[in-house]
């Protein structure tokens, strides 16, 4: 093929399944046979590879904030990332920081998650200048069996940030309304 558009492109979802290793070998072979002979589909696989590589780099460099899982945290450690952890029970406040040589900070927010269907988070950020920023994050992913929500803030943003107080209020949400699961306060000072 010389780069013309493909008459029968592989579904992007199938390319993703191929890329993350979800397909049996018998299903991988025709995909590989196709994109080896098809510049158009090879370009789409390359785009997917670039996306995967970019996301890996973004997490390693601390540019991404996300809720993560314990196995993901272990992967970060295996990859040599230096991680500072703060574990908070409901109602606790912690003095925290991030050093120049830290790659990430993780907040372990302990909460009674058994039976909880959905968790939202109310955030408030106070730089002590009289203006408090507030926002709500909906439908946080969590594994109820761990009794924790693992919060990974952006290390890049934290390293640039002046002293502030960051408060997270976790809420259990269901058809009947919402109820608090815990409130956690991070008093951040630059290192």
């Amino acid at each position, binding site marked *: 093929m010389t780069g013309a558009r493909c008459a029968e492109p592989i579904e992007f979802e199938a390319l993703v399944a191929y890329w993350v290793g979800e397909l049996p070998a018998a299903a991988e072979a025709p995909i590989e046979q196709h994109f080896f002979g098809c510049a158009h589909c090879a370009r789409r696989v*390359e785009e997917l590879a670039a996306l995967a590589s970019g*996301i890996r780099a973004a997490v390693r460099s601390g*540019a991404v904030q996300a809720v993560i899982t314990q196995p993901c945290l272990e992967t970060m450690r295996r990859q040599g990332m230096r991680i500072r952890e703060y574990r908070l029970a409901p109602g606790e406040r912690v003095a925290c920081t991030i050093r120049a040589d830290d790659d990430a900070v993780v907040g372990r927010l302990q909460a009674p998650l058994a039976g909880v269907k959905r968790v939202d988070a109310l955030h408030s950020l106070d730089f002590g200048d009289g203006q408090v920023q507030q926002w709500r994050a909906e439908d*946080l992913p969590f*594994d109820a069996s761990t009794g924790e929500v693992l919060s990974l803030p952006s290390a890049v943003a934290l390293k640039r940030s002046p002293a502030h107080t960051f408060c997270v209020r976790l809420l259990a949400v269901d058809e009947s309304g919402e109820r608090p699961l815990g409130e956690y306060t991070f008093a951040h000072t630059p290192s």
Partner: protein
Amino acid sequence: MSLDVETLEDGALACRIAAAGPRLDAAAEAELCRRLAPRVRLYGLRHLRDPHAAHDLVQQVLLMTLERLRDGRLREPERIVSFVLGMCRMVVLEIRRGSWRREKLLATYGDTAEAVEPPEPLALDAHKLAACVEALAERERTVVVLTFFADKSGDEVARELGLTAGNVRVIRHRAIARLRGCMGGDAT
């Protein structure tokens, strides 16, 4: 680069290289390598999960391919794509068995290894990508981080988040479509 080689199909390029034999058709060789190097590198990344190993795979496979074409040892040059894919599979198996050594490649081909230096892989704008990831919904962001940073399959992500694998694939599909759209690509 002469225009005529750009218009040829992969198989026709391989036939030209084979026909030239030891006289070498540099334009056809360069064009064939330009086309095949990214595909071999993708195969290497997918199966070896290591950019350096993928880079070595490109050199190994393309050098062996060119050598066989020049020597007339490839019986059906028009089926070059199948041959290259087969070579990729064989070399990756060798690498996994630990029986492949970069030194062997250098000893066999010497400095000519530089002749098939693969093109730079596609790289996305890091700041824009970070902003696009930030704009995802919480679950979508977690799923793409687990998928692409932690190399988790849909089943593994599902186990870690207490979701069904089908649900994870729906979230992942939606998240990737949004990221591609945000980055300015085709989101379909």
